[in-house]
Protein backbone atom coordinates (compact mmCIF):
# COMPACT_ATOMS: atom_id res chain seq x y z
CA UNK A 1 0.00 0.00 0.00
CA UNK A 2 1.24 3.46 -0.83
CA UNK A 3 1.58 6.07 1.91
CA UNK A 4 -1.16 8.73 2.02
CA UNK A 5 -0.82 11.96 0.07
CA UNK A 6 -2.95 14.71 -1.42
CA UNK A 7 -3.30 14.53 -5.18
CA UNK A 8 -3.43 17.57 -7.45
CA UNK A 9 -4.31 17.71 -11.15
CA UNK A 10 -3.32 21.23 -12.24
CA UNK A 11 -4.05 22.57 -15.72
CA UNK A 12 -1.33 25.22 -16.03
CA UNK A 13 2.26 25.92 -15.10
CA UNK A 14 1.18 28.76 -12.76
CA UNK A 15 -1.21 26.51 -10.88
CA UNK A 16 1.48 23.80 -10.63
CA UNK A 17 3.99 26.28 -9.32
CA UNK A 18 1.58 27.59 -6.66
CA UNK A 19 0.83 24.09 -5.37
CA UNK A 20 4.54 23.21 -5.22
CA UNK A 21 5.32 26.40 -3.28
CA UNK A 22 2.49 25.78 -0.79
CA UNK A 23 4.07 22.46 0.17
CA UNK A 24 7.66 23.69 0.28
CA UNK A 25 9.74 20.66 -0.65
CA UNK A 26 7.10 18.16 0.45
CA UNK A 27 5.25 17.90 -2.86
CA UNK A 28 6.52 16.00 -5.87
CA UNK A 29 5.76 16.33 -9.53
CA UNK A 30 4.22 13.16 -10.95
CA UNK A 31 4.69 12.56 -14.70
CA UNK A 32 4.96 8.92 -15.81
CA UNK A 33 5.51 7.89 -12.20
CA UNK A 34 8.06 5.19 -13.10
CA UNK A 35 10.55 6.67 -10.66
CA UNK A 36 8.24 8.40 -8.16
CA UNK A 37 5.83 5.50 -7.53
CA UNK A 38 8.63 2.95 -7.31
CA UNK A 39 10.35 5.04 -4.65
CA UNK A 40 7.04 5.45 -2.79
CA UNK A 41 6.25 1.72 -3.03
CA UNK A 42 9.67 0.96 -1.54
CA UNK A 43 9.08 3.49 1.25
CA UNK A 44 12.01 5.66 0.11
CA UNK A 45 9.81 8.68 -0.53
CA UNK A 46 6.80 9.95 1.45
CA UNK A 47 5.63 13.18 -0.19
CA UNK A 48 2.68 15.05 1.36
CA UNK A 49 1.36 15.74 -2.10
CA UNK A 50 1.71 14.47 -5.67
CA UNK A 51 1.15 16.91 -8.49
CA UNK A 52 0.14 15.04 -11.65
CA UNK A 53 1.16 17.34 -14.50
CA UNK A 54 -0.24 15.24 -17.34
CA UNK A 55 -3.01 17.83 -17.79
CA UNK A 56 -0.50 20.47 -18.91
CA UNK A 57 -0.99 20.47 -22.68
CA UNK A 58 1.94 22.84 -23.26
CA UNK A 59 4.35 20.16 -22.02
CA UNK A 60 3.48 17.83 -24.90
CA UNK A 61 4.63 17.32 -28.45
CA UNK A 62 7.67 17.33 -30.69
CA UNK A 63 8.03 20.32 -33.05
CA UNK A 64 10.49 22.24 -35.21
CA UNK A 65 10.92 25.99 -34.95
CA UNK A 66 11.69 28.26 -37.92
CA UNK A 67 15.33 28.26 -36.83
CA UNK A 68 15.36 24.45 -37.14
CA UNK A 69 15.54 23.97 -33.41
CA UNK A 70 13.80 20.83 -32.23
CA UNK A 71 11.57 21.24 -29.21
CA UNK A 72 10.51 18.22 -27.17
CA UNK A 73 7.83 18.66 -24.50
CA UNK A 74 8.83 17.33 -21.07
CA UNK A 75 5.83 14.96 -21.03
CA UNK A 76 6.85 13.22 -24.27
CA UNK A 77 7.19 9.51 -23.50
CA UNK A 78 10.15 7.37 -24.48
CA UNK A 79 7.73 5.39 -26.63
CA UNK A 80 6.61 8.48 -28.56
CA UNK A 81 10.24 9.39 -29.25
CA UNK A 82 11.11 5.81 -30.18
CA UNK A 83 8.25 5.78 -32.71
CA UNK A 84 9.00 9.16 -34.24
CA UNK A 85 10.52 8.98 -37.73
CA UNK A 86 12.07 12.40 -37.23
CA UNK A 87 13.92 11.26 -34.11
CA UNK A 88 14.97 8.03 -35.77
CA UNK A 89 16.37 9.77 -38.86
CA UNK A 90 17.81 13.05 -37.58
CA UNK A 91 18.50 12.42 -33.91
CA UNK A 92 19.72 8.84 -33.97
CA UNK A 93 21.70 9.22 -30.74
CA UNK A 94 18.53 10.13 -28.85
CA UNK A 95 16.67 7.30 -30.57
CA UNK A 96 19.37 4.88 -29.41
CA UNK A 97 18.89 6.12 -25.83
CA UNK A 98 15.12 6.22 -25.48
CA UNK A 99 14.61 2.83 -27.12
CA UNK A 100 16.84 1.25 -24.46
CA UNK A 101 15.03 2.58 -21.37
CA UNK A 102 13.66 -0.27 -19.19
CA UNK A 103 11.03 -2.22 -21.11
CA UNK A 104 8.09 -1.61 -23.44
CA UNK A 105 5.95 -0.92 -20.38
CA UNK A 106 8.46 1.54 -18.90
CA UNK A 107 8.77 3.42 -22.19
CA UNK A 108 4.99 3.65 -22.62
CA UNK A 109 4.83 5.56 -19.35
CA UNK A 110 8.22 7.14 -18.63
CA UNK A 111 8.74 10.70 -19.89
CA UNK A 112 11.88 12.38 -21.10
CA UNK A 113 11.32 15.19 -18.58
CA UNK A 114 11.13 12.68 -15.74
CA UNK A 115 14.29 10.97 -16.98
CA UNK A 116 16.25 14.24 -16.77
CA UNK A 117 14.66 15.46 -13.53
CA UNK A 118 15.39 12.22 -11.66
CA UNK A 119 19.03 13.22 -12.25
CA UNK A 120 20.53 9.75 -12.06
CA UNK A 121 23.98 9.17 -13.58
CA UNK A 122 22.51 6.31 -15.64
CA UNK A 123 19.69 8.25 -17.38
CA UNK A 124 19.63 6.94 -20.93
CA UNK A 125 18.29 10.09 -22.56
CA UNK A 126 20.82 12.34 -20.83
CA UNK A 127 24.07 11.47 -22.61
CA UNK A 128 22.48 11.63 -26.08
CA UNK A 129 20.94 15.01 -25.24
CA UNK A 130 24.29 16.31 -23.97
CA UNK A 131 25.94 15.12 -27.18
CA UNK A 132 23.25 16.89 -29.21
CA UNK A 133 23.93 20.15 -27.36
CA UNK A 134 20.46 20.29 -25.77
CA UNK A 135 19.11 23.11 -23.61
CA UNK A 136 16.32 22.83 -21.08
CA UNK A 137 13.47 25.30 -20.69
CA UNK A 138 12.34 25.82 -17.12
CA UNK A 139 9.23 27.67 -16.00
CA UNK A 140 7.61 28.52 -12.69
CA UNK A 141 7.56 31.09 -9.97
CA UNK A 142 10.28 33.29 -11.49
CA UNK A 143 9.12 33.10 -15.12
CA UNK A 144 10.73 31.20 -17.96
CA UNK A 145 14.45 30.56 -18.18
CA UNK A 146 16.81 28.49 -20.25
CA UNK A 147 19.87 26.46 -19.24
CA UNK A 148 22.35 24.33 -21.13
CA UNK A 149 21.73 20.75 -20.00
CA UNK A 150 25.25 20.65 -18.49
CA UNK A 151 24.19 23.37 -16.03
CA UNK A 152 20.94 21.59 -15.15
CA UNK A 153 22.79 18.81 -13.37
CA UNK A 154 24.18 19.71 -9.96
CA UNK A 155 24.73 16.24 -8.50
CA UNK A 156 23.14 12.86 -7.95
CA UNK A 157 19.34 13.43 -7.80
CA UNK A 158 20.03 17.14 -7.70
CA UNK A 159 19.02 19.58 -10.45
CA UNK A 160 19.02 23.36 -10.89
CA UNK A 161 15.22 23.50 -10.49
CA UNK A 162 14.28 26.09 -7.87
CA UNK A 163 11.23 25.62 -5.60
CA UNK A 164 8.08 26.05 -7.69
CA UNK A 165 9.85 25.44 -10.99
CA UNK A 166 9.27 22.68 -13.53
CA UNK A 167 10.98 21.53 -16.68
CA UNK A 168 8.73 22.32 -19.65
CA UNK A 169 10.78 21.56 -22.75
CA UNK A 170 14.03 20.30 -24.12
CA UNK A 171 15.45 22.13 -27.11
CA UNK A 172 18.04 20.73 -29.53
CA UNK A 173 19.75 23.46 -31.59
CA UNK A 174 20.23 23.01 -35.33
CA UNK A 175 23.08 20.64 -36.23
CA UNK A 176 25.47 20.86 -39.17
CA UNK A 177 24.04 19.10 -42.23
CA UNK A 178 26.67 16.38 -42.03
CA UNK A 179 26.74 14.94 -38.57
CA UNK A 180 27.52 11.52 -37.19
CA UNK A 181 25.81 10.49 -33.99
CA UNK A 182 25.07 7.46 -31.82
CA UNK A 183 24.65 6.29 -28.24
CA UNK A 184 25.61 2.94 -26.85
CA UNK A 185 24.30 1.57 -23.60
CA UNK A 186 26.53 -1.21 -22.39
CA UNK A 187 24.70 -3.48 -19.97
CA UNK A 188 24.66 -7.11 -18.93
CA UNK A 189 21.14 -7.75 -20.18
CA UNK A 190 19.45 -6.24 -23.21
CA UNK A 191 16.34 -5.30 -21.25
CA UNK A 192 15.54 -4.05 -17.77
CA UNK A 193 19.08 -3.27 -16.80
CA UNK A 194 20.90 -0.02 -16.16
CA UNK A 195 23.98 0.95 -18.13
CA UNK A 196 27.37 -0.23 -16.88
CA UNK A 197 28.57 2.49 -19.20
CA UNK A 198 26.88 4.72 -21.75
CA UNK A 199 28.70 6.69 -24.43
CA UNK A 200 27.01 9.22 -26.73
CA UNK A 201 28.69 11.14 -29.53
CA UNK A 202 27.76 13.74 -32.07
CA UNK A 203 30.40 14.90 -34.57
CA UNK A 204 29.53 17.80 -36.84
CA UNK A 205 31.66 17.47 -39.94
CA UNK A 206 33.14 19.84 -42.45
CA UNK A 207 34.37 17.61 -45.23
CA UNK A 208 36.44 14.95 -43.53
CA UNK A 209 37.25 17.05 -40.49
CA UNK A 210 35.38 17.44 -37.26
CA UNK A 211 34.15 21.02 -36.87
CA UNK A 212 32.46 20.31 -33.56
CA UNK A 213 32.65 17.23 -31.35
CA UNK A 214 30.42 16.50 -28.40
CA UNK A 215 30.99 13.35 -26.37
CA UNK A 216 28.93 12.49 -23.30
CA UNK A 217 29.01 9.66 -20.80
CA UNK A 218 26.47 8.11 -18.45
CA UNK A 219 27.43 6.20 -15.30
CA UNK A 220 30.90 7.73 -15.56
CA UNK A 221 30.49 10.37 -12.83
CA UNK A 222 27.85 11.49 -10.29
CA UNK A 223 25.92 13.08 -13.17
CA UNK A 224 25.87 12.47 -16.93
CA UNK A 225 28.95 14.41 -18.18
CA UNK A 226 30.71 15.69 -21.28
CA UNK A 227 34.23 14.47 -22.07
CA UNK A 228 35.70 17.88 -22.95
CA UNK A 229 39.30 16.70 -23.29
CA UNK A 230 38.45 14.08 -25.88
CA UNK A 231 36.23 16.59 -27.71
CA UNK A 232 39.03 19.16 -27.91
CA UNK A 233 41.44 16.52 -29.16
CA UNK A 234 39.15 15.50 -32.04
CA UNK A 235 38.18 19.01 -33.11
CA UNK A 236 39.75 19.86 -36.48
CA UNK A 237 40.93 16.28 -36.99
CA UNK A 238 39.78 13.47 -39.23
CA UNK A 239 38.03 10.52 -37.59
CA UNK A 240 40.79 7.99 -38.19
CA UNK A 241 41.19 4.79 -36.16
CA UNK A 242 44.25 6.24 -34.42
CA UNK A 243 42.48 9.49 -33.48
CA UNK A 244 39.41 7.66 -32.20
CA UNK A 245 41.58 5.37 -30.13
CA UNK A 246 43.36 8.34 -28.57
CA UNK A 247 40.01 10.06 -27.90
CA UNK A 248 38.85 6.92 -26.08
CA UNK A 249 41.94 7.00 -23.88
CA UNK A 250 41.44 10.70 -23.08
CA UNK A 251 37.73 10.24 -22.28
CA UNK A 252 38.55 7.32 -19.98
CA UNK A 253 41.14 9.44 -18.17
CA UNK A 254 38.82 12.37 -17.54
CA UNK A 255 35.85 10.22 -16.42
CA UNK A 256 35.23 9.69 -12.71
CA UNK A 257 33.39 6.37 -12.52
CA UNK A 258 32.88 4.70 -9.18
CA UNK A 259 32.97 1.15 -7.93
CA UNK A 260 29.54 -0.35 -7.42
CA UNK A 261 28.09 -3.84 -7.25
CA UNK A 262 27.32 -3.51 -10.94
CA UNK A 263 30.95 -3.04 -11.89
CA UNK A 264 34.31 -1.67 -10.80
CA UNK A 265 35.65 1.77 -11.76
CA UNK A 266 38.60 0.31 -13.67
CA UNK A 267 36.34 -1.88 -15.76
CA UNK A 268 34.16 1.14 -16.54
CA UNK A 269 37.21 3.09 -17.69
CA UNK A 270 38.18 0.19 -19.91
CA UNK A 271 34.68 0.25 -21.39
CA UNK A 272 34.99 3.92 -22.35
CA UNK A 273 38.23 3.21 -24.23
CA UNK A 274 36.59 0.45 -26.26
CA UNK A 275 33.12 1.92 -26.69
CA UNK A 276 34.05 5.40 -27.91
CA UNK A 277 35.82 4.18 -31.09
CA UNK A 278 33.17 1.48 -31.55
CA UNK A 279 30.18 3.83 -31.65
CA UNK A 280 32.09 6.42 -33.62
CA UNK A 281 32.49 3.82 -36.37
CA UNK A 282 28.80 2.96 -36.13
CA UNK A 283 27.87 6.65 -36.39
CA UNK A 284 30.06 7.12 -39.45
CA UNK A 285 28.55 4.06 -41.13
CA UNK A 286 25.10 5.42 -40.44
CA UNK A 287 26.01 8.79 -41.88
CA UNK A 288 27.41 7.13 -44.99
CA UNK A 289 24.21 5.15 -45.46
CA UNK A 290 22.01 8.22 -45.03
CA UNK A 291 24.12 10.12 -47.56
CA UNK A 292 23.91 7.45 -50.22
CA UNK A 293 20.14 7.18 -49.65
CA UNK A 294 19.80 10.94 -50.13
CA UNK A 295 21.79 10.79 -53.33
CA UNK A 296 19.51 8.11 -54.71
CA UNK A 297 16.36 10.17 -53.99
Amino acid at each position, binding site marked *: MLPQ*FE*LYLPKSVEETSEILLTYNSNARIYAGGTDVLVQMAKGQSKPEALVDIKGLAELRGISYSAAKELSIGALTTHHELENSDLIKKKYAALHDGVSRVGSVQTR*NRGTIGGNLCSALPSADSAAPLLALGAKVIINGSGGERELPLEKFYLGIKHTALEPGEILTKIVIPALARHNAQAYIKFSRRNAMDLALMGVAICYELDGLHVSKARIALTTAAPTPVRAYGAEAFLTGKALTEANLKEAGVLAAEEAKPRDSWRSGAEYRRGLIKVLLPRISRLALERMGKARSENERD
Partner: protein
Amino acid sequence: MKEIELRFRLNGEEQRLTVPSNVTLLHVIREHFGLMGTKEGCGEGECGACTVLMDGRPVTSCIILAEEADRHDIMTVEGLMKDGKLNRLQQAFLDEGAVQCGYCIPGMLMSAQGLLNENPHPTSQEIRKGIEGNICRCTGYNRIVNAIHKASQDEGDS
Protein backbone atom coordinates in the same frame (compact mmCIF):
# COMPACT_ATOMS: atom_id res chain seq x y z
CA MET B 1 -6.98 12.76 1.76
CA LYS B 2 -9.57 13.45 -0.91
CA GLU B 3 -11.41 10.68 -2.73
CA ILE B 4 -11.35 10.69 -6.51
CA GLU B 5 -14.17 9.97 -8.90
CA LEU B 6 -13.28 7.92 -11.94
CA ARG B 7 -15.02 7.07 -15.18
CA PHE B 8 -13.31 4.62 -17.44
CA ARG B 9 -13.77 1.66 -19.70
CA LEU B 10 -12.72 -1.73 -18.34
CA ASN B 11 -12.76 -4.67 -20.73
CA GLY B 12 -15.25 -2.83 -22.90
CA GLU B 13 -17.66 -1.75 -20.17
CA GLU B 14 -18.11 1.77 -18.78
CA GLN B 15 -17.32 1.93 -15.07
CA ARG B 16 -17.76 4.60 -12.42
CA LEU B 17 -15.90 4.40 -9.17
CA THR B 18 -14.70 6.49 -6.26
CA VAL B 19 -11.26 5.67 -4.87
CA PRO B 20 -8.72 7.12 -2.43
CA SER B 21 -5.86 8.85 -4.26
CA ASN B 22 -3.19 6.45 -3.00
CA VAL B 23 -4.39 3.21 -4.59
CA THR B 24 -2.84 1.73 -7.69
CA LEU B 25 -4.64 0.61 -10.81
CA LEU B 26 -3.58 -2.95 -9.97
CA HIS B 27 -5.30 -2.68 -6.59
CA VAL B 28 -8.53 -1.45 -8.15
CA ILE B 29 -8.54 -4.20 -10.79
CA ARG B 30 -8.02 -6.98 -8.28
CA GLU B 31 -9.68 -5.77 -5.08
CA HIS B 32 -12.54 -3.68 -6.41
CA PHE B 33 -13.45 -5.54 -9.59
CA GLY B 34 -12.29 -8.97 -8.40
CA LEU B 35 -10.40 -9.58 -11.64
CA MET B 36 -7.68 -11.90 -10.38
CA GLY B 37 -5.97 -12.56 -13.72
CA THR B 38 -3.73 -9.55 -13.28
CA LYS B 39 -0.97 -10.61 -10.87
CA GLU B 40 1.29 -8.76 -8.49
CA GLY B 41 4.90 -9.92 -8.60
CA CYS B 42 7.45 -7.30 -7.68
CA GLY B 43 5.20 -4.25 -7.21
CA GLU B 44 7.98 -2.08 -8.65
CA GLY B 45 7.59 -2.21 -12.42
CA GLU B 46 10.28 -4.84 -12.93
CA CYS B 47 8.55 -8.17 -13.61
CA GLY B 48 5.56 -7.42 -15.85
CA ALA B 49 3.13 -9.78 -14.06
CA CYS B 50 0.71 -6.86 -13.57
CA THR B 51 0.71 -5.78 -17.23
CA VAL B 52 -2.61 -4.50 -18.61
CA LEU B 53 -3.41 -2.51 -21.74
CA MET B 54 -4.08 1.19 -21.36
CA ASP B 55 -5.50 2.58 -24.60
CA GLY B 56 -4.17 -0.53 -26.33
CA ARG B 57 -0.60 -0.36 -25.02
CA PRO B 58 1.04 -2.46 -22.28
CA VAL B 59 1.71 -0.76 -18.95
CA THR B 60 2.59 -2.10 -15.51
CA SER B 61 -0.51 -1.44 -13.38
CA CYS B 62 1.43 -1.71 -10.09
CA ILE B 63 3.09 1.66 -10.69
CA ILE B 64 0.08 3.54 -12.01
CA LEU B 65 -2.29 5.47 -9.78
CA ALA B 66 -5.92 4.43 -10.17
CA GLU B 67 -6.67 8.11 -10.77
CA GLU B 68 -4.93 7.86 -14.13
CA ALA B 69 -7.46 5.40 -15.54
CA ASP B 70 -9.99 8.25 -15.66
CA ARG B 71 -11.32 8.58 -19.22
CA HIS B 72 -9.03 5.84 -20.50
CA ASP B 73 -9.58 2.37 -21.86
CA ILE B 74 -8.21 -0.46 -19.72
CA MET B 75 -8.06 -4.08 -20.76
CA THR B 76 -7.04 -7.00 -18.54
CA VAL B 77 -6.47 -10.61 -19.50
CA GLU B 78 -10.16 -11.30 -18.76
CA GLY B 79 -11.02 -9.00 -21.68
CA LEU B 80 -9.27 -11.14 -24.28
CA MET B 81 -11.93 -13.83 -24.55
CA LYS B 82 -14.75 -13.19 -26.99
CA ASP B 83 -18.15 -14.92 -26.87
CA GLY B 84 -16.81 -17.50 -24.47
CA LYS B 85 -13.92 -18.40 -26.78
CA LEU B 86 -10.20 -17.91 -26.19
CA ASN B 87 -8.64 -15.42 -28.57
CA ARG B 88 -5.98 -16.58 -30.99
CA LEU B 89 -3.09 -15.61 -28.69
CA GLN B 90 -4.55 -17.53 -25.76
CA GLN B 91 -5.25 -20.52 -28.01
CA ALA B 92 -1.71 -20.40 -29.43
CA PHE B 93 -0.21 -20.34 -25.90
CA LEU B 94 -2.13 -23.56 -25.16
CA ASP B 95 -1.34 -25.20 -28.49
CA GLU B 96 2.39 -24.47 -28.20
CA GLY B 97 2.63 -25.57 -24.56
CA ALA B 98 3.84 -22.09 -23.61
CA VAL B 99 2.44 -22.23 -20.08
CA GLN B 100 4.01 -23.88 -17.05
CA CYS B 101 3.15 -22.46 -13.61
CA GLY B 102 1.16 -19.72 -15.34
CA TYR B 103 1.98 -16.81 -13.05
CA CYS B 104 3.59 -14.68 -15.75
CA ILE B 105 1.12 -15.63 -18.46
CA PRO B 106 -1.60 -12.95 -18.05
CA GLY B 107 1.09 -10.26 -18.24
CA MET B 108 2.79 -12.04 -21.13
CA LEU B 109 -0.50 -12.21 -23.02
CA MET B 110 -1.16 -8.51 -22.51
CA SER B 111 2.32 -7.55 -23.71
CA ALA B 112 1.88 -9.84 -26.71
CA GLN B 113 -1.55 -8.35 -27.46
CA GLY B 114 -0.08 -4.85 -27.19
CA LEU B 115 2.69 -5.81 -29.60
CA LEU B 116 0.24 -7.24 -32.16
CA ASN B 117 -1.95 -4.13 -31.86
CA GLU B 118 0.99 -2.04 -33.02
CA ASN B 119 2.77 -4.56 -35.23
CA PRO B 120 0.51 -7.38 -36.51
CA HIS B 121 3.36 -9.42 -38.07
CA PRO B 122 6.41 -9.07 -35.84
CA THR B 123 9.72 -10.85 -36.49
CA SER B 124 11.03 -13.15 -33.79
CA GLN B 125 13.46 -10.39 -32.73
CA GLU B 126 10.54 -7.94 -32.44
CA ILE B 127 8.59 -10.49 -30.39
CA ARG B 128 11.50 -10.85 -27.96
CA LYS B 129 11.72 -7.07 -27.65
CA GLY B 130 7.93 -6.92 -27.19
CA ILE B 131 8.06 -9.19 -24.12
CA GLU B 132 11.31 -7.79 -22.71
CA GLY B 133 9.43 -6.41 -19.69
CA ASN B 134 7.91 -9.76 -18.69
CA ILE B 135 9.89 -12.19 -16.61
CA CYS B 136 9.11 -15.91 -16.76
CA ARG B 137 10.83 -18.25 -14.30
CA CYS B 138 9.65 -21.46 -15.93
CA THR B 139 9.48 -21.71 -19.68
CA GLY B 140 12.76 -20.36 -21.04
CA TYR B 141 10.66 -18.11 -23.31
CA ASN B 142 11.06 -20.11 -26.54
CA ARG B 143 7.60 -21.60 -26.54
CA ILE B 144 6.12 -18.24 -25.63
CA VAL B 145 7.87 -16.65 -28.60
CA ASN B 146 6.67 -19.50 -30.82
CA ALA B 147 3.10 -19.04 -29.61
CA ILE B 148 3.10 -15.32 -30.33
CA HIS B 149 4.59 -16.00 -33.74
CA LYS B 150 1.91 -18.57 -34.47
CA ALA B 151 -0.90 -16.24 -33.36
CA SER B 152 0.47 -13.47 -35.55
CA GLN B 153 0.23 -15.75 -38.59
CA ASP B 154 -3.33 -16.94 -37.92
CA GLU B 155 -5.94 -15.02 -39.81
CA GLY B 156 -8.72 -13.67 -37.67
CA ASP B 157 -9.98 -10.49 -36.19
CA SER B 158 -8.89 -10.66 -32.56
